């Protein structure tokens, strides 16, 4: 199985008040064919920005460096015209808010068939047929009628199904899902996660799943990358991350969650707050909140160290 996407040394800087601040620093990861990679972290950790940079949806004055290789091509070097033939066709995206990402003045059908006509050269009539089939495949009842309705006529769960239909229309190689179920109720979330798994399996689509919900990660992902304050701090197969977390931040996150079974014990929070972009600590960015921080942590950030096969952690505790 080859890698469908390789991100290498990605750096993203935002300009705020005439100064540049680093939102994503030295991020590298890859996604294999048919694999689901989870990118987890709290607000401001850079997970959404990373996903937008893959789609090249970040505008100047944002500065991006590094490489984002999709099937060997560095997306950051592609002319916009070629990028457009990839976007929505080979790589597509679903967002958190299905209401704000659908166009309220266009019919559902038009929004789905748009990419079919653009990328797949279908005629209007063929595209409509295919659109109805897509709506059916994402579990929308009465697709022949819904195709002519507007987004406001649908519920939140139905709108997210439409978003998935749009994203899957051209059978992409890679689907980027940015908090796809965060705005949904838990019973609807179960439906949507189930649907994402099904369509990805049928089309052999790889998924980059961005979420803050460790439960969703455990359920959906093959591998996980944990981000904190713009950097990946730990990465590995999902079972190892949950069974044998090595970074104090990953350990802290898992320990702070209330459980749905077993005895109820006092929660173990991570003290302090997530640092802001303008106030990044020196050295390891987690050091000010880390119970096991040493002097070296406050001076220099650690490199990655291999824990086990394919499981690596960026922490001085693991340095030889």
């Amino acid at each position, binding site marked *: 199985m080859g890698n469908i996407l390789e991100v290498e040394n990605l750096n993203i800087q935002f300009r705020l008040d005439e100064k540049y601040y680093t939102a994503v620093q030295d991020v590298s990861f890859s996604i294999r064919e048919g694999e689901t990679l989870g990118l987890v972290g709290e607000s401001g950790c850079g997970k959404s920005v990373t996903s937008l940079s893959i789609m090249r949806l970040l505008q100047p004055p944002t500065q991006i460096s590094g490489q984002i290789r999709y099937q060997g091509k560095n997306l950051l070097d592609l002319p916009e015209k070629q990028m457009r033939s990839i976007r929505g066709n080979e790589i597509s995206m679903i967002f958190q808010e299905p209401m704000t990402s659908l166009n309220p003045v266009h019919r559902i059908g038009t929004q789905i068939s748009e990419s079919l006509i653009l990328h797949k050269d279908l005629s209007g009539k063929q595209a409509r047929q295919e659109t109805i089939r897509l709506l059916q495949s994402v579990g929308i009842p009465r697709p022949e009628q819904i195709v002519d309705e507007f987004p406001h006529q649908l519920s939140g769960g139905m709108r997210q199904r439409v978003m998935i239909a749009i994203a899957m229309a051209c059978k992409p190689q890679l689907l980027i899902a940015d908090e796809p179920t965060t705005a949904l109720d838990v019973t609807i979330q179960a439906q949507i996660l189930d649907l994402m798994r099904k369509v990805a399996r049928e089309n052999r689509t790889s998924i980059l799943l961005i979420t803050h919900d460790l439960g969703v990660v455990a359920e959906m992902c093959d591998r996980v990358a944990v981000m904190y304050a713009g950097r990946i701090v730990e990465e590995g197969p999902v079972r190892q991350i949950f069974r044998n977390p090595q970074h104090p931040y990953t350990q802290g996150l898992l320990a702070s969650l209330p459980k*749905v079974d077993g005895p109820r014990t006092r929660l173990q929070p991570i003290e302090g707050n997530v640092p802001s972009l303008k106030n990044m600590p020196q050295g390891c960015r987690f050091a000010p909140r880390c119970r096991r921080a040493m002097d070296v942590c406050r001076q220099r950030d650690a490199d990655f160290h291999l824990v086990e096969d394919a499981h690596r952690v960026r922490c001085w505790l693991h340095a030889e």
Partner: protein
Amino acid sequence: MAEALLQVEDLKKYFPIRRGVFQRTVGHVRAVDGISFTVQKGETLGVVGESGCGKSTMGRSILRLIEPTSGVVNFEGRNIVRLRKGQMQAMRRQMQLVFQDPYASLNPRFSIAQTLMEPMIIHNLYGSREERLDRVRRLLERVGLDADYARRYPHEFSGGQRQRIGIARALAVDPKLIILDEPVAALDVSVQSQVLNLLEDLQEELGLTYIFIAHDLSVVRHISDRILVLYLGRMMELVEAEELFADPLHPYTQALLSAVPVPDPDAKRERIILQGDLPSPANPPSGCPFHTRCPVAKPVCRERAPQWKEIKPKHYVACHAYA
């Protein structure tokens, strides 16, 4: 020993739907449709349900921040639904609300001191400004913030800190009951547990009673003594927290619990995926409101609403399957 602090009987809140030039009432949204429960002193009652189940409306109706359509709310034996405006205002000192959104619920133009002193001024507590300021400083320390933050403004704080300020504001008037409406939903995971621990500490120290409204089931299980499950404005199940997760009886509760993603990749669970969407509370299904999505619905479920029954000791369910 156990003493009822709050007793809610058949609480209803219908919002009229108005249409046309003359704004005639053409129907009602039955946001809360007959809810009854008792909360003991020092207890935490968790209230769970999905959007539109009426959990927030219920919280606000109990405090009469919106007027209930009918029903009884006894606070320490007094029916507060009957109280006149002035009496009700005095009563609110006993019962406070903490909101979900720590960004929207603090006035950006008020310093933290002003925010925390306002309820003291309204309720005429503490004689002088100095005493109030002193109280503000103690409150801030009590919720784990620096006393000097009193002079700052909301924009200088993170979400977790703002929620601590929201809790301090509720505590400012020494209430007996605090209704917490999704108090940790907007917070990051690592901060959420800090706030939950704070709420537990405050409860123990001050003998507070909580109604904890949330959609996150693991959070509710953690903090609650008993849990009430709502669906479309009606009560589905009510039981002690661990029992609800160990032995859920209502098909809706079973589906809800099975839908929660568990942070354990090896968890093998039988998942019940409900078909269809939540019906609109403006047009709720006949009989049991859950019958349109219920995997075990029978004809009778469409015709009659099930009775609220004690199926096991202190385990209440409204479902025809247990009739």
